[in-house]
Structures are given as C-alpha cells and as structure tokens.
C-alpha cells in the first residue's frame, strides 16, 4: 500500500497547533516515515493538489476562505479539524458577540476600516462550512493526542476521545479544587483529554476543548451556588472560548 498523502492548511489562527507538530521533534521524523506530507506552508516550500488527508488549522472568517476550504474538502478523503480555532471557533468567536462587525473593524483600524482588504464576517468553526471527520481539540492541541489520532487513522481504527469533564482527570491527579481558591474554573462542563493541564498548574480551566456533548449544567450550577456566585460569573469565563456555541448553560 502506498503511503497516505497528508496536506496541512492554515486559516485564521496563531499557528500554535502546527507548531506542536514541530514540537514532536524526533517523532515528527517517524510520522514523515509512514506518511507523505505533500503540503505544509509553514515548514516546506512544496505544494500539492493531491492528498488523502487534509488537516485544517484555524477559523473561517472571510468568504474567500470558505471557498478555499470547500475546495480542500472536495479533494480530501479525510478532513481533520486541528485545535480550538478549527473545532469550535476558539477566541476568534469573541468578535461574534458584537452586534455590529463594523464596530469591531473600527476598533482596530479606525477611519481606515472600510478599506476592502480589511473585510471580515462572523467567525465560523470548520464544521460550520464543511463536514469534518475527526476533531483534535485544545488550544493548543496536545501532541500526544494528535499522534494517537493519526496512529488510529493509519491503522483504520476510530480514535476514542473523552466525552467526560475535565474534573474527572483533575480529581484523578489529586489536585485541590480551584473553586476553593476563588477561581471560576470551567472543569465541570468542559471536555477532558488534556490531563487537566491548566488546573494542575494552578490555573482555572477556561474551556479550550469545548463543552462535553452533554454538559452537566446542574453540577455547574450547584458549584456556583455553593461558592455564592451567579451564572453571570460563569458566563464571563465561558465566553473566552465558548462564545455563541450550543449547547450552553444560557438556556
């Protein structure tokens, strides 16, 4: 069997997720041994229109980018959304909270905001434009989870991605609960799989892996009641990575 061809494409994002490929160090060389990377603008000069697997990093914020993404989808057998900007829109969706995008542009470009090359539209996650076959969650992605998913793909298996909350992994690590230290942590409703990286470093979960498919909203409300807080406190943190997403605690 010939080696599968992989192409990597970036849209609006910080490119920190593809940086995690480089951060695989020697393992990246192993990956290159079992698959042909045919296009990866950040690291290679080569380009290609023939590939089996397309990896998409970043959010979609312009019509021209929607068209480019649709073309990529039509050429790829398998499409992977890489990182929070691609899987859920990430921080890029914060701008969708403004009723008027012209105001957003004015905020940044002032009187020049009407120039045509500064056009923008509401941020979309990749699956709001095309079908996505696999999701690699997180901001940035976890390198180990990425290689696990690629390994499954090459072996024809379906990767198992956790659909339970971060609290499960955090408790298993024996971390003290950050709510007791006055932090508004989103662990109860956010998808695990990160090994509770942030709370393990004393930093509240801010939700970069998105909500679990059935977030335990009652548990979250119980926690805020216990600490004398309101849904509004929770919302101010949920908005960072979870702007305008469903299901949410708003309902």
């Amino acid at each position, binding site marked *: 069997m010939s080696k599968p061809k992989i192409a990597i494409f970036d*849209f*609006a*994002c*910080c*490119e*920190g*997720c*593809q*940086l*995690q490929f*480089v*951060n695989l*160090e*020697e393992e990246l*060389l192993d990956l*290159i041994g079992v698959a042909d*990377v045919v296009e990866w*603008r*950040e*690291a*290679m*000069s*080569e*380009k290609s229109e023939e590939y089996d697997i397309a990896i998409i990093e970043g959010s979609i*914020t*312009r019509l021209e*980018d929607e068209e480019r993404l649709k073309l990529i989808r039509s050429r790829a057998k398998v499409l992977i959304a890489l990182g929070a900007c691609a899987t859920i829109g*990430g*921080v*890029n969706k*914060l*701008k969708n*909270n*403004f009723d008027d995008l012209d*105001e*957003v*542009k*004015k*905020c*940044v*470009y*002032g009187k*020049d905001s009407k*120039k045509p*090359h*500064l056009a*923008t539209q509401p941020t979309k996650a990749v699956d709001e434009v095309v079908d996505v076959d696999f999701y690699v969650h997180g*901001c*940035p992605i976890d390198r180990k989870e990425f290689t696990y998913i690629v390994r499954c793909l090459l072996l024809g298996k379906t990767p198992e991605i956790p659909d339970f909350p971060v609290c499960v992994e955090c408790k298993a690590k024996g971390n003290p609960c950050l709510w007791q230290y006055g932090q508004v942590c989103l662990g109860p409703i956010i998808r695990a799989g990160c090994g509770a*990286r*942030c709370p393990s*470093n*004393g*930093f509240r979960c*801010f939700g970069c892996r998105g909500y679990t498919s059935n977030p335990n909203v009652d548990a979250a409300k119980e926690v805020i009641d216990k600490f004398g807080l309101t849904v509004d406190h929770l919302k*101010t*943190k949920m*908005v*960072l990575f979870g702007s305008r997403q469903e299901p949410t605690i708003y309902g």
Partner: protein
Amino acid sequence: MAKTVNINVHHVTRVEGHGNIVVNATNGKIEKVQWQVPEAPRFFEAMVRGRSYEDIQTIVSRICGICSITHSLASTKAVENALGIQVSEQADKVRILMHYSEQLQSHILHVGYLVAPDLFGLPSVVPLVAKAPDAVMAVIRLHRLANEWSDLIAGRTTHPVTLKPGGLTKFPTEKELRELQQRLKNSVGDLKAVAAAVLSVAGNLPNFTRETEYVSLKQDNPPTYTFYHGDITSTDYDGAVSIHDWQSVANEYVSDQSTAKWTKWHRDSYTVGALARFNNNAPLLSPMAKDVARMFGLTQGCCNPFMNSVAQIVEAVHVVETSIEMIDELLTKGIKPESVKTSPRAGKASGCVEAPRGILFHQYEFDRKGNCVGADICIPTNQNHAAIQKDFEKFVPEILDEGEDAVRLKLEMLVRSYDPCISCSTHMLNVEFVR
C-alpha cells in the same frame, strides 16, 4: 542586459502567517516591487473589550503560537502597570527565565528549520536530515530542551498557564531548577555545533546592506542585554524613550498593500529584532555569545538584514549562558511560596518586552471593575513591514540581472530573515475607545 521578470509569490512558505511578493520588470525597467500582507485579520483589540483584567493574558496569548509567552508577559506587565500591582523579585526573575526559554525555542526553530534549508540549497528541513544529520539532530535537541524548559516554568510549551497578574500560579522547585541548569550546561556543545554548521554555509547569505534605523529596548540599571525591562532606544537616537510613550516611536499607519499596520520613527522605516538588539546592546552580551558574534564577523552597526539569523544564534547562546547564572541566583536565595491577591481598579497603561522577532507593545485601559474598555497592540513584524518593502526596492535592482528564479529565492530569503510572524502582525492597531 535587459531583463523581464514577473514574480508573484502567493503565500511565502516557511514563514509564520501569509505574505505575498510581487515583482514586475520589463526590459530591465522595474514597474512594481511589493511586499503584501493578506493575512485574515482577527481583531484582538476588539476581542478583549469587556473582558476582566484576569483574562486578558489568556486571550492575547493566542495572537501568536510562536511567541505566546512574550505576548503573555507584555500583556501581564501592562495589566499590572494599569492596576498598580507589584511583582516580587523572585517572580520577576522566574518570568525572565520563562521568557528566555521562548527566545531559545523561537531562534532555534527559525534558524534551524526555516532558514538553514535555504543556506544548504534545499526546500525544507526534511531533506536536510540526510545532508547534515548531526546539525539537524543538534537543532532538534536544542528545540526540545527549550520546549521542556517552557513546560517546566510556563506550565506548557505554547500558551503559558502559570502567569497571573501579580506573579505566577506555580514556581519550579529548587530540584527542578538544578536539573534545568545542568541540561543548559550540557547544551553548550549543541549550540556550538549549530553555530559551526551555519558558519560553514554563511557564504550563501546574500551580501546586501541598506542603512536604516534599528529600534529595541535598552536597560542601564543594571546594564543588561535586555529582553524584558528598560526603555526604548534606536541607532538614530542617543537617549531613551519610556515604554509608556511607545506610540510616539511607532507612529502607525494603514497601508493599502497590507492588513497589518506599518510604522516609522526617524526615517521612512525602522527595523526590530535580534539584529536591532545586537546593534544597540552588543557590548552587554555574555562572553560566549561575543565569541560566536566574532566567529561570524558580526559587529555593531551591521545593516545587512540577512545577518539577523546570525544575531539570533548569538542570542541563543546568550540566553543559555545568562540563564545558567540566573538559576544560581535563584537557588542562592531559595524559592519561597507566594500568595498574591489582586483587586480591580480603573487605569490605563502599557507593557513592553522584546519578542524573539523584535520589540512588542501592549496597552490596555480598564474601568473600575477591572473590565477592559480599550486596547492597543503593536507587534514587531508590523514594525518590520515597511523595512521589508524598502529592502525590496533597493535589493531588486541590484539582483535583477540574476534572473527570475534567483530574484524570487533571494526575496523569499529576505522575508524569512526578518523571522516574520504575520498572523501576529495583523492586529496592531489604534484602538479607538468606543464606549
């Protein structure tokens, strides 16, 4: 010899973000030379509006995956300045150590993975593995060391999770610091190997100069080759400008060929980055870093933008050597637990640090509840866009006779030498504070 050249490089490869190169010349007459930045803007100055001072770092870290620690530090310093929050000497030192891990990571990534293939005449680092296996393995080891160094102090490699206004959520233990120090000492051989490998092909760096202004931080008290504290200076200016007056240095304006803003100070363009820091502060480098600069013949006043990659190697050595000393200082005093409580108040202030690719400015304004009402961020790559354009205008006539392929390659190499971080640069802005 009359030459006709039509170059249209859509999305230059091996750089962070999206940039285009356009050159048109007919019969030796140059009609158009342009550096374009079409990156999709993300509007960070708008994204932070309404968010708590505690969440600013989490958002703006995402401006850039490669220099996320730098953005986190600049924004945290700005928040602390705006809210009058003090930071202990211990936290200050550990933050600088965190910052150095990113300088090493970014410089090694740039020189080893992105620039070296050009010097060896290859399209990427992949075939370089076969051509210079020892040097590539040294690059990989150094890159991994830098990443594990970030993991230890910042909580992870990209987008730090230990920074908070007033200090850090977690300090490394003394044992961890001792182990890190030993690894840094052990890395000197790899640093020398990378320097030697680049030196062996340094003759392929184009010999091009354009006299210009170089802008960076400088720190007099104590005298330091600084990335983190100090004031703004330049090779055109003997004095120093407070970082709080950075808008009077950057003088940003919108260009039609770019979604990123451009800047100018004493001339029609200025340059930031490793070469700018070197040109302003070279006498303060560590001894081994000075040796490496000498090896390459790099001296203060160098105006060859291609030498920026060499200045990065010099700085990589400097941050390793300096960090070994800083860890000694931390261990002598011992790591003490800290518990910092902060409270909101109204205020407006700036924070400034050196990103690997040049000086970075953040400014925020908060209401009395500590919610952000405005932001202004000016990124190093934006400050280099005008310089890249001016370089193109001088460089293209000098090399036009070499033909289309050579011109294209050399212009791509020129862009890469600035180590641009284009996705960062499409958000420098004047934020009008709309209430």
